[in-house]
């Protein structure tokens, strides 16, 4: 791959680049959703694409999420490859049936007669004081349901590769981008490690293959999306205190690379799982259960979850920080699991 030009992009720009390339190379790919044509999508994924491809292929919709997700499902069944922009993940509440009963079920219920090659883009997560209805991660509400692949990249390189893979996939894929990692201006300066040097060429990343962000020997920290960066901050601090932390980013919740996680815990014997979503019945529980089912005797100490403690996300800064899986909370969990 050509890495010579040293293009460092944000996640939003990297994802947009993949969308643009796929739309240029496959006339069946089109985007529809909220504020895509002129605004470029709330999170910038369609920035400028309206001018390039026109209003028929960058299709603004009314605020009718049930309607346009159902419509995209039908378009996908009939041979198109729609990319749907749903802005905030919180809004799945108004269109959950279209997601889980239409897009996610038609392939199975039709015994594969119909495919639903569709991408649903969601902006997830908080940390910028936007209140309880615009800050949720909601990974588990989607990953829990069969029939959809769920990806939550943490950096720009993955964002581009997974966007190419998602658009080309014949399955229904939910693409969750955390807003604070997106690099879109009004969400603040991007987290430096979420930006990546991006090859010019298109490339895909295989679903269900975790990335070891940092190798270590004492504790395994599994984190997804924005929490990956918090885990890395904690790991770097503890490195100075002599604790060797391995950080694993599964990158896709469905399929989940259980094998890589289990292999890491076999090595370290200790596990912390960090996720911005609600704790109970969530990603953190799923990871721990998966390791215990496979390796019940591997643990030197009880695993620890660092997630939202099952509370509505508050607005005020100190309260919101209290419920996020911040590096401070992850660091404390690592110290606890080392006891």
């Amino acid at each position: 791959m050509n890495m010579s030009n040293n293009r460092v992009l944000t996640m939003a720009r990297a994802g947009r680049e993949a969308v643009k390339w796929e739309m240029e190379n496959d006339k069946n790919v089109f985007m529809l959703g909220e504020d895509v044509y002129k605004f470029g999508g709330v999170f910038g994924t369609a920035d400028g694409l309206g001018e390039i491809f026109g209003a028929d292929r960058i299709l603004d919709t009314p605020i009718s999420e049930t309607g346009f997700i159902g419509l995209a499902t039908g378009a996908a069944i009939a041979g198109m490859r729609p990319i749907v922009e749903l802005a905030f993940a919180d809004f799945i509440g108004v269109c959950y049936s279209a997601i889980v009963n239409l897009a996610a079920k038609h392939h199975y219920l039709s015994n594969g007669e119909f495919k639903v090659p569709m991408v649903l883009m969601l902006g997830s997560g908080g940390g910028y004081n936007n209140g309880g209805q615009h800050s949720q991660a909601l990974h588990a509400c989607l990953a829990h349901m069969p029939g959809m692949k769920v990806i939550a990249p943490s950096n720009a390189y993955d964002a581009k590769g997974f966007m190419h893979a998602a658009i080309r996939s014949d399955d229904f894929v939910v693409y969750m981008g955390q807003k604070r990692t997106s690099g879109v201006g009004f969400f603040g300066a991007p987290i430096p490690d979420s930006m990546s040097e991006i090859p010019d060429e298109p490339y895909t990343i295989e679903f269900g293959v975790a990335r070891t962000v940092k190798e270590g020997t004492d504790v395994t920290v599994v984190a997804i999306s924005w929490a990956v960066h918090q885990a890395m901050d904690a790991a770097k601090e503890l490195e100075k205190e002599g604790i060797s932390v391995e950080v694993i980013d599964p990158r896709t919740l469905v399929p989940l690379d259980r094998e890589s996680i289990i292999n890491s815990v076999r090595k370290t014997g200790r596990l912390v799982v960090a996720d911005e979503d609600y704790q109970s019945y969530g990603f953190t529980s799923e990871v721990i259960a998966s390791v215990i089912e496979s390796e019940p005797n591997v643990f030197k100490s009880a695993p620890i979850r660092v997630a939202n403690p099952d509370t509505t996300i508050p607005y005020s800064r100190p309260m919101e920080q209290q419920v996020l899986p911040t590096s401070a909370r992850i660091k404390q969990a690592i110290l606890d699991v080392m006891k």
Partner: protein
Amino acid sequence: MLPDNETRVKMYRTMLTSRHMDDRIMELYYKDKTPVFDIAAGLIPGEIHSSHGQEACAVGTVFVLGQEDWITAAHRPHHTAIARGICVKKILCEIMGKANGLSAGRGGHMHLYSKEHKFCSSGIIAEGMGPAAGMALASRMQGKGGIGVCYLGEAAVNQGAWHEVMNMAGVYKLPFICVIEDNNWGVSVSKAASTAIARNSDRATSYNALGLYVDSNDPDDIYNKMTEATEYARSGKGPVILELKTYRLQGHMLGDPQHYVPEEEKLAFRDCTIDYKNKLVNEGVITESEADSIIADIKNEVDEAVEFAIKSPLPDAQNALTGNFV
């Protein structure tokens, strides 16, 4: 445009196929659930929403459509699927959960699919709206000239999905038709109790759509209005709401006591298969004895399909675990 006589006889035969299939399903359904009604028991478990009384709505509309057009059917899909020409054996096998059903037993009676027939269905009220509109959009984007048709009942018009999609179809001027089969009942709630206006086709005004209404439950009248609807949709002018007054003769689902339906309303129920036969005989399209032999033919065909389905194998239980992804 009214159908020619050859089409009318085909429509009659198709109505009878649907009716006799539903009669046989009903017979088998109850036989296995007597004396104690257990919804999980027998050859045909689960809910069955039979199409008794609504067959005219299917033939009168589907017979106007072409191979390029797309259909999403409702939770009550038998008559629509049969009118579309989907194999009765495969439908029955799916309803009995057999390995050679349309979806190899993964779907069941509310989830009938056929790619060859561009036919999908969905058991959740009004949720066929979005997909049918999307199929219309895809057809237009691909230059294939097809239209999307969503079938649903009058109670579905009170779903948010219905209004969202009608509005989008109006905004995008989609080649889309919503066929409302108005049987006056959403399970046990009457249209009068659930719906603020008398005619749902009047809602077309809100969505810059063409609203059409047929009150006769007669296949010829329906065919005529559906011809107007498809011409309008194909012309690029925008979507159509086609409202059809019909009758639900066996309740919401088999086993529904229908105690909530007033006696005078039940007495006024019309059976479109009998009305249409009488009409065809009175107009000299077929003779009484030809009608009798058509009925006998159809019964034989359907009975053979029922026997085929009964003898067909159940799927391997392990098949439950695959198929969520390509």
